[in-house]
């Protein structure tokens, strides 16, 4: 895209692949004998390795969080609005690490990778991964990078779940957990949406029980439908209304079932683009990880007991029109942190964009994020 790079961009970046040979035990009981993680970093690690910030990605995210891969790239990384010189996660001060999680489809080992045992893609044989598994693999990555303790682990949505899980699984390896537009567990409605998405994928004729790679096929329609459903839940009624209203593509009704309304063609377009770049098995895996996340489960539903080991400070942010992970879900988390006597700050940001608001800079959100991260930077001497 850019003719010249914006001054607050991290610029041209390139991902690196880290290969791990030691097997990783997973929550499902299986292990991955060896695996790759694809990682991008921005900024410089300081001498005492105290200024590292881990960015955890959401459902369809990956390692490319900021900057551009080339001058031809149309859009920057998915969280470019918040990562860069002078931005809340200021790369002049922090060393930022972003990765593609295990099970992903952007270079890290996942269902589309070759299974060393068979020489074919894993497909449905790829083990189900949980949020805890991701955190474990991220800790191994931190070891590799020489980072004993993160200044902060930061994430939105599914990324926020990882930021929270970090505080429970490795309480002494992070100073701050920043949990944005997230939830301590999915509601039945959330799981229902995920199930519709999975059914759309698995009922596609091209899915072949997840072995579509072997058939040279791709369940594109299923993945497109899954993304369309998801996409609707990430926006708000008001933001869709503002963007599309009931606008027609042509002047009049055609009394048929083609995409007549602008919103229909937008959803179809988004779904199609997504189905070309994302792996269907990864989508199944990521939505399942969302469903399973529930740190309170082992503690009879008592989240404050689950939070007992946490040692970090928390920042929790929700958005007023987010109906996928409502402010009430964040408040539930905050109240459990209060009951567990953890240090937590919370704000509900008034923004019209639904769940997606966490990717869009609004003045109040930026102010909060700036103030908090500035203080984190001062604390670690960055």
């Amino acid at each position: 895209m850019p003719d010249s790079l914006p001054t607050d961009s991290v610029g041209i970046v390139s991902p690196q692949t880290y290969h791990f040979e030691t097997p990783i035990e997973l929550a499902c009981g299986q292990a991955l004998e060896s695996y790759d993680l694809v990682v991008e970093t921005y900024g410089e690690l300081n001498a005492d390795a105290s200024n590292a910030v881990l960015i955890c990605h959401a459902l369809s995210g990956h390692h490319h969080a900021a900057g551009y891969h080339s001058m031809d790239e149309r859009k920057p990384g998915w969280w470019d609005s918040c990562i860069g010189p002078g931005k809340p996660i200021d790369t002049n001060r922090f060393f930022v690490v972003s990765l593609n999680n295990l099970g992903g489809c952007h270079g890290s080992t996942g269902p589309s990778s070759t299974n060393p045992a068979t020489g074919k893609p894993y497909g449905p044989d790829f083990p189900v991964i949980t949020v805890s598994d991701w955190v474990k693999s991220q800790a191994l990555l931190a070891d590799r990078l020489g980072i004993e303790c993160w200044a902060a682990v930061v994430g939105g949505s599914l990324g926020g779940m990882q930021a929270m899980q970090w505080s429970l699984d490795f309480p002494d390896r992070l100073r701050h957990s920043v949990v944005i537009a997230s939830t301590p567990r999915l509601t039945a409605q959330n799981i229902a949406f995920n199930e519709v998405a999975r059914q759309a994928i698995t009922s596609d004729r091209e899915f072949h029980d997840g072995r579509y790679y072997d058939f040279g096929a791709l369940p594109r329609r299923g993945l497109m439908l899954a993304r369309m459903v998801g996409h609707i839940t990430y926006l708000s009624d008001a933001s869709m209304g503002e963007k599309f209203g009931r606008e027609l593509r042509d002047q009049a009704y055609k009394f048929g079932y083609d995409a007549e309304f602008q919103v229909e063609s937008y959803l179809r377009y988004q779904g199609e683009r997504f189905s070309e770049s994302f792996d269907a098995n990864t989508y199944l895996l990521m939505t399942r990880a969302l469903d399973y996340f529930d740190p309170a489960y082992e503690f009879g539903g008592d989240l404050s007991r689950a939070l007992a080991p946490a040692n970090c400070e928390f920042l929790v942010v929700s958005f007023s029109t987010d109906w996928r992970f409502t402010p009430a879900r964040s408040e539930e988390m905050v109240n459990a942190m209060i009951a567990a006597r953890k240090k937590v700050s919370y704000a509900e940001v008034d923004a019209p964009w639904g769940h997606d608001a966490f990717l869009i800079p609004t003045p109040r959100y930026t102010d909060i994020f700036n103030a908090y991260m500035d203080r984190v930077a001062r604390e670690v001497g960055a």
Partner: protein
Amino acid sequence: MRPDLEIIQQWIKPGHHVLDLGCGDGTLLDYLQRERGASGFGLEINPEHITSCMGRGVAVIEQNLDTQGLGNFDDSSFDVVLMTQALQAVRRPDRVLDEMLRVGREGIVTFPNFAHWRLRWGLSLSGRMPESEALPYKWYNTPNIRLCTFKDFEALCRQKGIRIKSRRVVDGQHQNSWLARLWPNLLGEIAIYRITREKEQ
């Protein structure tokens, strides 16, 4: 350090867990954390104040006392619940006092005295709603919707069985003058009350 905050901090012990209702920009909690080794939370609704708290490392929760109350805090989960210059701005100060002493063992409350001589004088002479340093608003835009006098507050405490452990009366500059001590309801502009439930301690 503002003299009223100076007085308040004397009542906070190291390690005390403190809740500050309407904590503003976090000045008091920040001071109590650094100087008194206290921990705790501030509740606030003003976005700029919330951001300031976050910037200085004060744990702040966006929470509206009028609409949300303190239902998310357990009984006796704080050593001290503070409320400086906010009692007059909540819809039901009586209920807030109950809640303060439910979640905290002790409460510290400060508010402006509507019976201060200058306010009495202003109202009687001009026949218009008085303004002062402690109450620097017009009647129509003031956040202070439940003005009371020291006598009113103490009557409410008696009625509720709330024990007043101590009271310091200061003027608008938060000075502790001997005259104000002598005739508090007439000469005191701001009072700092330290309260607890009747049966405790």
